């Protein structure tokens, strides 16, 4: 008889679990559309709807997630439950071997996205994204159309926020702002910053800030091109943070250890003027700033070997 009790136990346990974790959420959890997600059933984004199928078919979600978290810096606004009402099958993703794509739409030009799909390492050296060059033209265009719709309905002021200690939400940030004497919006400050930029930054970022300094060719991680419209949304304190702390994993140094606070604020004033409505694309080696050949004085043999120990 105890087997019958056991069998009934297995049945009941399982039914309770299905009820509480599958059926109950279906009944209780019905988020209303938030108006911030894309409805791919609607005619106006027909290509994107097909692009979404390509996204599913090519398994993009194995490496790219589609939900932003509180701690993700620089990935745009947080998602809410209602954003996902039209997403079936869901593409939330489980691993981030690549970046999060929640708000990817509009970040890069469609040409860039396409080039990146065909040969990722041509536009992002060091990336391990597989090449999707086998996609047909139509598939590729639709996929890019889909990527460009991601996050379009989530309007935002800033994608990126500096860490807390640079913002007025903390004591450290308030103290920083109190010490600041430079008006970062004035053209005079920008002019002063230009000199600092030429001396410290131009060697990698180029004289115009297009990422085309003479050093650029030797760097695996290419220096940023400040003419990209993306940088328009950088707040002052984010520029200041980047300049001060450098970019980990690249050759960008921590200028906080080289330049004074005042110099860095002048630099911010100049950097703010660089983003344009359209990016100046650097795609050939002739566009790099050239460095003059350094002329070394001709040396005699003796000068070449000064450390002979005086033994002769």
């Amino acid at each position, binding site marked *: 008889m105890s087997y019958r009790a056991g069998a009934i*136990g*297995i049945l009941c*346990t*399982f039914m309770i*679990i*299905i009820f*509480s*974790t*599958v059926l109950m*959420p*279906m009944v209780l*959890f019905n988020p209303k559309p938030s108006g911030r*997600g894309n409805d791919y059933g609607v005619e106006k984004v027909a290509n994107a709807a097909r692009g979404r199928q390509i996204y*599913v*078919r*090519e*398994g*993009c*979600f*194995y490496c790219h*997630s589609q*939900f932003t*978290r*509180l*701690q*993700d*810096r*620089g990935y745009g606004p947080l*998602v809410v*439950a209602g*954003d*996902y*009402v*039209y*997403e*079936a*099958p*869901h593409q*939330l993703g*489980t*691993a*981030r*071997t*690549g*970046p999060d794509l929640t708000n990817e739409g509009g970040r890069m030009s469609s040409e860039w996205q396409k080039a990146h799909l065909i040969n*990722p*390492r041509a536009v*992002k050296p*060091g990336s*391990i*994204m597989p*090449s*999707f*060059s*086998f996609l047909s033209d139509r598939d590729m265009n639709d996929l890019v159309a889909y990527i460009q719709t991601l996050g379009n309905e989530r309007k935002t002021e800033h994608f990126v926020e500096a*860490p807390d200690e640079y913002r007025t939400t903390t004591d450290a940030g308030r103290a920083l702002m109190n010490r600041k004497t430079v008006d970062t919006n004035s053209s005079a400050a920008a002019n002063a910053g230009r000199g600092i930029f030429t001396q410290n930054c131009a060697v990698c970022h180029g004289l115009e800030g297009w990422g085309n300094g003479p050093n650029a060719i030797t760097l695996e991680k290419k220096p940023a091109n400040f003419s990209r419209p993306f940088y328009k949304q950088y707040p002052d304190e984010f520029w200041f943070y980047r300049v001060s702390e450098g*970019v*980990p*994993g*690249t050759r960008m140094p921590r200028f906080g250890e080289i330049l004074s606070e005042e110099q860095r604020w002048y630099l911010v004033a100049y950097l703010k003027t660089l983003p344009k409505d359209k990016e100046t694309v650097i795609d050939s080696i002739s566009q790099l700033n050239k460095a003059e050949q350094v002329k070394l004085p001709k040396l005699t043999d003796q000068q070449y070997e000064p450390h002979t120990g005086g033994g002769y």
Partner: protein
Amino acid sequence: MLTALRDKFLSDKEGSASRNFFLSALWWSLWAMGAGLFAAAEFAMPDLVHNVPQLSMPHLRMWHVNGVAIGWLSMGYVGAMFHMVPSLCKTKLWSERLGNFTMWAWNIVMVGAFCTLLNGTTEGREYAELSAVLDVLVVIALVSIALNIYMTIVNRKVKKLYVSLWYFLGSLFWFPLVYIIGQRTFVALPGLNDAIVGWFYGHNILGMWFTTVGVGMMYYLLPRLTQAPLYSHGLSMLGFWGIALFYAPTGTHHILQSPAPEWLKAIAVISSIFLLVPVLTVLTNFFMTMRGKWGMVVTDMPLRFAVTSAMFYLVTCVQGPFQATRWVNWYLHFSQWVVGHAHLALLGTFSFILTSAFYYSIPRLTGREWYSQGMIRAHYWLKFLGFLLMMTSLTIAGLVQAAGWAFGMPVDQWSLQIRPYWFFRELSGIMILLGQVIFAYNTFKTLYTPQAIPATSAPSVIKTSEAGA
């Protein structure tokens, strides 16, 4: 003529269904693990292949996951159950013909999966990629397996049910249901609900199938191999009901940081932590059974595989609950650490216990001794060391990645830092696959080499002593 064909393809011979399931599992493991290795190579060398959609990383990954889960592990599990259940019930399998029919159906699923997944025909749901036709076939196969096992147990010659049978009975009841609910083949749920059901399935294919059948196999193998009675029947029951209660609702811990409902996340986290109770109960039972017998792992290879599996089970199940808590998950989620954890469960624990069952069962099913003990040892060391290397490299890579996310570094900056670990992972994959190839070769030689001493007339399935019950 027709009867001859029927006897060839739907053999009635005792133990044939189990043997055929085991061999199919081994066959698919080579293809699925090979795909995993190839995908790993593309992580290390992203420009390895261009313009071949079938060999692009996501397609290989889909096939790798489905191949090892549905092909290698599940088919092997069925093979093991078809051997263990009749043995525990001191009777024959209810229908060898039905068993062999299921074997063919499952192999057709695998051929279909191979052709569709590599071409990108997917439903786009992680762990549930198989398309509708294949889903239906899987369910048919699962139901006929359940019927076969249930009828065998009904016809049993012993009164009391050993704990392994409880696990098998439970799994065969839960898993078809979980599979049907989890596939979502004919429904389109709104995004987050889709994710909730998806992870209910994604975690329970592990919790209600791989774990429960795997633990049932451990309960069978350890007492048999050590010739020692099970330490405690009471503890084993506690462990069984603990797993049944706490495993199923844990799925939502995979989307802990998404906007899914908080109460559901709370249920998932709490039951994940509660899982420590049945896991430690089960392992206490195993390790107490091993008292005074630890030395046997030196000579007894199946036992060595089984004990390694139990050790890895301990590591997995201590890691798992902590990863599921919000504060650890906050840091580690999305990183390769999780991939390492998944391999620890499926490769370290369940693949090892299946291999143990394989080495234990094949001589009993065919009456042939293993062709080479040396090859078994080579297989063990390649798989064990290869797996440790994989686990270490993925864990370190995961920690680097997690730090990158936590400090807000752009992806392409930390991705450069973890490049060496992709190469180590690739190396570990080579070791594991090489071990598996040696395993396959050993099996082939065992079965198809004419042996000097003719095999004993009947397999010793029924004669083996009943342990522990």
